[in-house]
């Protein structure tokens, strides 16, 4: 994915309105954001402020009501569902608060999932999975099923799944939200390393100031717009 002038993510004049019956909920209002390549950005804000909504728009999981979402120079807000699905599988790694692992698959097979959408052979897929599990320090747990792993380990499997296709952009939605402090720290260290050592661009939604402190920049969402200052 090529960035324009070093900018990987460009969100311009984005509105997002949800409709619940006759009621309209204006979650994002004329929002602008630029994220340079390699940045580890934390997005903070109270519940319902639209942090996850913004993350979903950047990840192509949802579309803005108005405005432009451009990732690596591509207008993803104009893509069809099929194009978006293909785009996500190539360029985005997703990390979820509740890990979202498939319980019927072991760690190795969970990490392999995004590679099933590529043309890699089984042997090539296996090699990529081994590398990703090594990066997150879980090579020894590859054959374990999610229910036999701790929360921290499950999240590391989730991160391995997010990086296995070597995407430029990692989107993490409350990645430490379901973890104790120690496990959360391990996950944050891992994300930091991915940013510093592997040049990944990371956007992380969090409530936790301890987590946002690990990021290179923190932005706050307030009344549908981004500010540098925490919401009072």
């Amino acid at each position, binding site marked *: 994915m090529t960035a324009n002038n070093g900018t990987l993510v460009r969100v311009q004049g984005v509105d997002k309105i949800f409709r619940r019956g006759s009621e309209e909920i204006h979650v994002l209002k004329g929002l602008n954001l630029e994220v340079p390549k390699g940045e580890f950005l934390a997005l903070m804000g109270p519940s319902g402020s639209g942090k*996850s909504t913004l993350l*979903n728009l950047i990840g192509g999981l*949802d579309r803005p009501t108005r405005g432009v979402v451009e990732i690596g120079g591509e207008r993803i807000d104009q893509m069809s569902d099929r194009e978006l699905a293909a785009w996500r599988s190539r360029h985005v790694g997703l990390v979820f608060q509740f890990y979202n692992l498939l319980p019927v698959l072991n760690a190795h097979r969970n990490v392999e999932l995004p590679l099933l959408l590529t043309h890699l052979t089984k042997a090539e897929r296996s090699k990529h999975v081994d590398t990703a599990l090594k990066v997150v320090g879980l090579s020894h747990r590859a054959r374990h099923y999610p229910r036999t792993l701790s929360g921290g380990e499950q999240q590391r499997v989730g991160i391995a799944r997010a990086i296995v296709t070597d995407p430029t952009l990692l989107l993490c*939605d409350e990645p430490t939200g379901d973890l104790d402090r120690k496990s959360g720290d391990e996950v944050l260290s891992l994300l930091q390393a991915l940013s510093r050592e592997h040049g990944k661009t990371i956007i992380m939604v969090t409530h936790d100031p301890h987590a946002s402190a690990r990021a290179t920049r923190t932005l706050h969402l307030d009344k549908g717009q981004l500010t540098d200052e925490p919401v009072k």
Partner: protein
Amino acid sequence: MIHWLSQVFSIASFNLRTIPERKGAVLASAVGIAGVAAVLVGFLSIAEGFRAAIMSSGADDIAIVLRSGADNEMTSGLTREEARMIGDAAGVARTEDGPLVSAELFVIINLPKRSTGTDANVPFRGVEKPATAIRGDIRIIEGRMFEPGRSEVIAGAGAARAFSGLEVGNTLRIGQADWTVVGIFTGGGGSAESEIWTDAAVLQPAYHRGDSFQSVHVKLTSAETFEAFTNALANNPQLEVKAMRQRDFLADQSSLLTGFIQGIGFFIAALMALGALFGALNTMYSAVAARTREIATLRALGFGASPVIVSILIESLILALAGGIVGAAAAYFAFDGFQAATINWQSFSQIAFAFAVTPQLLLSAIAWATVIGLLGGLFPAIRAARLPIAAGLRET
């Protein structure tokens, strides 16, 4: 395409692996579909067995001649002169003794059923000597053939099994006369086995029929001469008759009952299918609801909507097929060869037959199961594909 198929295969295999976690609902739905298949096969095997019994004695080189406008032997009437002219027509097979033609009488008598003791209708047929040669497969298995001119009868093996009083040596009181049972015969499993036969010349006076008959059975020189035979009858201005191949005649005679049984079978199976469809829908909707987050996760990772739809259809189809095969197999073991007797409404006579579960019936049951499976999976699959990904990811 291979890419798409591998997505379908992957998602379907994840789905199928979750079946043990929801075995209760899955089992209920499969049993419902098995019930549909079993009922369908059960009912249709009755109709099939009945049709087979009626038609097995049907041949293409035997013609049955009735009066024009008559639907069956009961409503037909022919004179001896007409019978003679029919025997002289082109295409009729001959032996040294003359044409293979049997002018026959057909009456209905009452005999008590062995199973219930209540009276039921039995066909009593008066035949001429060539009757056995015409039909070809008549074999005396006990006793002997009746002697012409005497009040003697032979009973079909099916009739002898179903009705009391048809033992060899027994005397029956029928139509103001006493008749002695002198033999039991088989007729290749066909409708003749449900009949009682005597000499037509003895039956005529017993039933005050003068010198008239109701049908003429004719052996043709070959199946191909049927057309020449019918043309000869049509071109004779003294005859007002119609001829049918025996196979067509028998199929026609059984059509009312087979149609009725098939109708009931399809009706009940359709009602049950509706129930099974809701069962399947419920199972698949719950399956989709329980896996909302997993489906959303796969979609978020880049799996397409159509592989999700197809994979859910495959799961539903596999469940339905399993149910359909089990139901059809159960019906096969329960019903195939089951002996029964029923009344043929067109001839008002008892027909002994065996339920016949044919490969076509098993296939049609599996086809029904397939349709239930596809419909039962379709709507839940569409719902799964339409789930907003962002919302689905947060489902617990």
